[in-house]
């Protein structure tokens, strides 16, 4: 008991002494604690983990109180140690909170970026699809135009081919016609040749003249007939054969008239009768020689159309004749 009182008494003195020297040098631990708190208070702990910062302050206050009460004591040191750690804890927790926020922000940004990229790609794809379609449409149009052109060309080619065929046909026709014409020409030339030849032969045996009436072949009566009769002399037959040959050379559509003539001697009706008989005889013979009967006729003219003067013997002889007229 006395020991206790003694201890308390000494305590009282020590306390008084302490109070007197209390506000003196803080321990290193307390200084470190104060510094740590200052740093924590300066940072983002106040904003992010205010409750932890408050706890740190409270720890520091405890340490300060211990310092005031018993400066340099083990309590002060221990509490300061704890206070320092509490301040550092607040800082660490604030750091963690910030990092967590950063993660959330970063993830948000990631999603936004991804979405933006996706949308960009989509727009790109849509643009590409549109461009592709536009090109496809262009291509289709070009193809269509080409097809139309081809059709047109095809049509024109057909037309041309038809025209060509037509031309060829006409050409062939023309050639055929030309050949026909040439054949006709050749035939005509041949005919003309024959005619000319026949005419030459005729001119050798008779008088041939072109007049208004046509071609007139004049044969003397004395050469042809027995005097005063209508019978043919043998020589006459040769001549008439030549005449017949000629007549057959002349175109069929030309009419032939055998005209008999006498001089002016004797009765008219006798002369007419004789001239007619003579014309008939000549006609008959010519038909026998091959001249088609329906193109040749015979006419007795009597003393009409004298070609010479009936007053002279020569003249009368000349008038006694047969004329074969080819009209």
């Amino acid at each position, binding site marked *: 008991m006395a020991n206790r009182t003694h*201890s308390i008494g*000494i*305590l009282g003195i*020590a306390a008084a*002494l*302490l109070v007197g*020297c209390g506000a003196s040098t803080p321990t290193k631990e307390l200084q470190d604690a104060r510094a740590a708190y200052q740093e924590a208070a300066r940072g983002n702990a106040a904003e992010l983990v205010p409750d932890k910062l408050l706890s740190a302050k409270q720890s520091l206050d405890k340490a300060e109180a211990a310092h005031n009460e*018993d400066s*340099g*004591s*083990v*309590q002060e040191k*221990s509490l300061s*140690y*704890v206070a320092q*750690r*509490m301040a*550092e*804890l607040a800082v*660490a*927790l604030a*750091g*963690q909170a910030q*990092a*967590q926020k*950063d*993660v959330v922000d*970063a*993830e948000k*940004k*990631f999603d936004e*970026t*991804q979405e933006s*990229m996706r949308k*960009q790609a989509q727009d*790109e794809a849509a643009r590409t699809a549109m461009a592709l379609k536009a090109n496809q449409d262009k291509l289709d149009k070009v193809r269509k135009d080409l097809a139309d052109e081809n059709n047109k060309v095809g049509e024109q080619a057909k037309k041309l081919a038809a025209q060509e065929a037509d031309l060829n046909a006409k050409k062939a026709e023309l050639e055929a016609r030309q050949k026909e014409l040439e054949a006709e020409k050749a035939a005509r030339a041949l005919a003309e040749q024959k005619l000319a030849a026949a005419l030459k032969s005729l001119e050798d045996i008779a008088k041939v003249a072109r007049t208004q009436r046509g071609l007139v072949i004049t044969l003397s009566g004395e050469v042809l007939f027995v005097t005063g009769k209508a019978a043919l002399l043998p020589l006459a037959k040769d001549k008439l054969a030549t005449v017949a040959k000629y007549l057959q050379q002349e175109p069929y559509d030309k009419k032939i008239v055998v005209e008999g003539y006498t001089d002016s001697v004797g009765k008219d009706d006798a002369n007419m009768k004789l001239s007619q008989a003579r014309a008939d005889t000549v006609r008959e013979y010519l038909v026998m020689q091959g001249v088609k009967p329906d193109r040749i006729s015979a006419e007795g003219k009597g003393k009409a159309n004298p070609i010479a003067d009936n007053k002279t013997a020569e003249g009368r002889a000349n008038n006694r004749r047969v004329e074969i007229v080819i009209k």
Partner: protein
Amino acid sequence: MRLVTGIVAALAACLAVACGAAAPVPQAQVTETQAAIRAAEEVGAPGVPKAALHLKMAKDQLQTAQALMAQEDNEQAKMTLDRARVDAELALALAREAAFRIKAQEALDKIKKLQEEAGNSKPAAQ
């Protein structure tokens, strides 16, 4: 001054000795401190330099506290346990902070990579 300091020291020691034995056994605090240390280890404090330091300090102080308790110096043991626990909590917080910082950096790197991909896949200027 030296005299005062000497008296104060003597008094403090007396106080400690006088009151030490009377304080309760801080068994709950021991359990809590041990739990805090385990938590710090699980979060990866040994891999983060600053956290590892505080973790060691927590473990050392826990051992000291248990020794003090064996000597029935519960007062001292309690103060030591306070320090050990706060060190363990700090180690835990530092380890967590480091982990989240890494996560945040990874998230930023992811964005950068995505943006680079976008830049690379852009078609040539028309």
